[in-house]
């Protein structure tokens, strides 16, 4: 298989960046003069997004956009019935599942038997990003446990996948034998047959498929003006995999050279229904795979397997990828219910099989526990019901987008210009208008509240090469090991308000927006260079604009 993506050469990137710096210097000087004016009639001076307060149009949050509740309010224009469903889904989002069997509450049982967390909220704290874990000075690393909102995806290296079809299994990743495509580092009691072993074996009766340890590698970024920023990059060690003895760990299926891992942090869950209702053609119109406009940016779509289309008998179960760090899921429904089954081990009507079904681990667990946690009950029903699934998906589809703050602030306004001049908008596309008419979302009728909205998500929904430093070197459907989907920036300024320990980027490595910018490489290296060459005041202004979103 061959990539359709054209990787830009570093030399070209540098030349383009230098040209941009020359161009930008005059405009920055002049724009600073303009920004000195106190006028509020600023509409003609700034990019059209600069003075937009309601980033979600009428789907913008009310009376919550300055505080930690900013990601957690329902779209205000939902009908009464829709609001009731949203609130039910809200409860489900925080529902912690327990070990099967739970005789008092069978609707809550079925956790795992191996998993990454027990409820949605633990990885999407207050509907936002999860906490980036820090390491005590007395330790070199920490074990991922209940506080971790991050996990590792994994698969066997098998080259690139050009376009999904039946012959190539629709570009689905190939899982690791006995493990699958996601490493579940936690378990219920007795998940492993050696659950009661002592050190140096498991020594933790709640161990999952393996222990995962987190440490950091530090580096320093130095700006042209001599100032510097300390950066950290997460590293992961895997130990005591379940499929081998502790003195033979290198023989494990996940310890082989052809296994690729990709860390994935929890991400915000508001505004997702709006993103799903952006017209496909509007996103595809932004594709520029061969960089025909020579701006150094060549976004492309990730076409992915769509389990809903497959369920409904579609001959071509392929859709545009929209969600996840690599745009590898087509809808909020597939993303959410995939996480329910994967991250928590809760089977549901869309994904009725346990995440570790047909592995030796599951078979051993079932044998030892009298066939508890098979994924279905005696009536053939999955652990999460259809209504539970529908409600929790609807919740994630209908969380409002927080409004902006400080839009009249002079630094924010100046930053809005710098944001455009630094070519951030080349990928962080400011605006779309969602579709109208008879529409479905995840196979269900779409709420009217999501339709016809002029939204400002600041994403093109496409994949871009982000360079070596961010690369996970793991394919995900059509996305290669360097590509990531452009993250929406709406609400990003509330990240620390919602969760002060949250980090940015796919593995939470960036503690600030500034650090996140400095990790931009590949196609985005141009923007990083432009940013780095600004004065410290201008850099601060640009960050202020992003923080106002």
């Amino acid at each position, binding site marked *: 298989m061959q990539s359709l993506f054209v990787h830009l050469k570093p030399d070209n990137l540098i030349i383009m960046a230098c040209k941009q710096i020359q*161009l930008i210097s*005059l*405009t920055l000087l*002049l*724009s600073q003069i*303009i920004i000195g*004016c*106190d*006028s*509020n*009639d*600023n509409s*003609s*001076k700034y990019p059209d997004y600069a003075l937009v307060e309601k980033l979600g149009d009428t789907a913008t949050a009310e*009376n*919550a956009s*300055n*505080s*930690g*509740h900013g990601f957690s309010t329902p779209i205000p224009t939902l009908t009464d019935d829709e609001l009731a469903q949203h609130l039910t889904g809200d*409860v489900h989002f925080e529902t*912690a599942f*327990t*070990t099967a*069997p739970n005789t*008092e*509450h069978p609707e*809550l049982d079925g956790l795992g038997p191996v998993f990454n967390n*027990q409820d949605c909220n*633990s990885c999407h*704290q*207050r509907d936002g990003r999860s*906490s980036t874990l*820090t*390491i*005590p*000075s007395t330790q070199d690393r920490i*074990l991922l*446990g*209940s*506080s971790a909102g991050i996990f590792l995806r994994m698969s066997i290296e098998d080259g690139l996948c050009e376009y999904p079809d039946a012959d190539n299994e629709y570009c689905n990743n190939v899982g690791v034998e006995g493990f699958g495509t996601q490493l579940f580092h*936690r378990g*219920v*009691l*007795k998940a492993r047959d050696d659950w*009661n072993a002592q050190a140096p074996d498991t020594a*933790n*009766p*709640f161990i999952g498929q393996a222990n995962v340890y987190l440490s950091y590698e530090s580096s320093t970024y130095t700006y042209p003006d001599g100032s510097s920023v300390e950066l950290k990059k997460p590293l992961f060690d895997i130990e005591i995999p379940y499929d081998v003895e502790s003195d033979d760990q290198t023989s494990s299926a996940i310890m082989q050279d052809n296994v690729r891992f990709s860390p994935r942090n929890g991400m915000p869950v508001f505004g997702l229904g709006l993103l799903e209702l952006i017209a496909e053609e509007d996103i595809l119109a932004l594709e520029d795979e061969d960089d025909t406009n020579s701006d150094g940016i060549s976004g492309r779509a990730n076409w992915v397997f769509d389990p809903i289309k497959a369920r409904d008998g579609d001959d071509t179960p392929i859709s545009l990828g929209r969600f996840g760090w690599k745009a590898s899921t087509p809808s909020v429904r597939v993303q959410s219910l995939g996480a329910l089954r994967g991250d928590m081990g809760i089977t549901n009507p869309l994904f009725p099989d346990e995440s570790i079904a047909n592995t030796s681990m599951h078979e051993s667990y079932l044998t030892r526990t009298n066939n508890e946690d098979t994924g279905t009950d005696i009536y053939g029903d999955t652990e999460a019901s259809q209504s539970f699934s529908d409600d929790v998906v609807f919740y994630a589809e209908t969380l409002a987008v927080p409004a902006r*703050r*400080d839009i*009249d602030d002079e630094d924010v306004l100046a930053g809005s210009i710098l944001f455009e001049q630094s070519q951030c908008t080349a990928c962080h596309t400011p605006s779309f208008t969602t579709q109208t008419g008879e529409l479905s979302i995840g196979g269900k009728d779409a709420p009217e509240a999501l339709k016809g909205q002029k939204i400002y998500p600041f994403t093109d929904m496409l994949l871009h090469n982000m360079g070596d430093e961010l690369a996970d070197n793991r394919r995900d459907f059509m996305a290669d090991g360097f590509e990531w989907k452009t993250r929406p920036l709406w609400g990003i*300024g509330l990240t*620390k*308000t919602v*969760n*002060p*320990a*949250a980090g940015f980027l796919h593995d939470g490595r960036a503690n600030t927006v500034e650090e996140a910018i400095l990790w931009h490489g590949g196609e985005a290296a141009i923007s990083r260079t432009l940013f780095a060459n600004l004065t410290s005041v201008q850099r601060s202004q640009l960050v202020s604009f992003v*923080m106002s979103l």
Partner: protein
Amino acid sequence: MFKKSCLSILVSVTLLSACGSDNDDDNTSFDFDATPMITNLTEDVIVAGYVDLNTKAEAFVAAITTLSTDKTEANLAAAQQAWKNVRQPWEQGESHIFGPVDSLGIDPHLDSWPLNTSDLEDLLSSQSSFTADGVRNSNDDVQGFHTMEFLLFGDGVEDNTKAITEMTDLEIEYLASAAEVFEGYTQDLEDAWLVASDANNASSEAYKDYLLETDNEVYSSQVGVVEELINGLIGIVDEVGNGKIAEPFGSDIDNTDTSLVESQYSWNSLADFTNNIIGVQNVYRGEFEDAADAQGIIDFVSATDSELATRIDDEISAAIANIKAIAGTDDLPFRQAIGDADARVRIQTAIDSLTLLQASLENDVLLLLNEWNVQ
């Protein structure tokens, strides 16, 4: 070519732009200097509450240590009382459940529900000893308040008393390990607010400073802090009225669910609910019960509508009184009250008062943020 066109555009823009002044004032706007209120609520309500929590957690650990070394009925009773004592500031603190309690995962570590009794009993029947490290690495549903409550009080079905003879040495060992882990988290919480929000980074801000000195990465202005506090009040009133009370209460007497009752093992439920709303009162009034007057949300409301300020205060007091009244003259615990016809009338009254309070906070207090001329 570019320079020429760019320059002409910029010049044109400059000429076209009009400079003027902003004027947000209207008839309903009001002034209020929030600094004294935020300072008081941060220092003397929130942080003071967490210090109290940690102090009582230390006392709880001491009580468990005593029980471990001297296994007597009296020491078990003292440990049970110590559990109820440390429960009080925790439940009151649920009126402001934001910041480190959430970001450090302390809420699920301390207060996960439902308890995984199946795993807990399996652990007790399979292990020969327990350590704090072992409990710390366990899932949240076998540690924290409710695990310790289960071990101290029993299953709560018939009674909330547990004879010392019913308590095994291994249970006490698990309890001691869980208590040590628990106190570590309450210390972390206090330190995050008072010393450094990231315990592993000494130069990180004490969390309280984010509230006291806004225009930072957490709160861009005091509007955010006041909005946080008011939404926090709404959140717990909603949770108590529509969750903690209404869900076990069910639609009628034939559809109750005792398994959903919070603190069902100790029969401390009504104290929990009462403390939740006393927590609301603490933030609203700006002081703990019977303390000297200090600034709270009531002063923010009074700045524009003193009648409303008093009405909200009355509604909070009524909600507290109505929750307390659920027990009735025969002092029914909540677990039993949901199945008693007379008590159900009293429960409905409490729910109604919480519904009224929630509506007032949402419709009357929160919207004042839009009229406030923040300084």
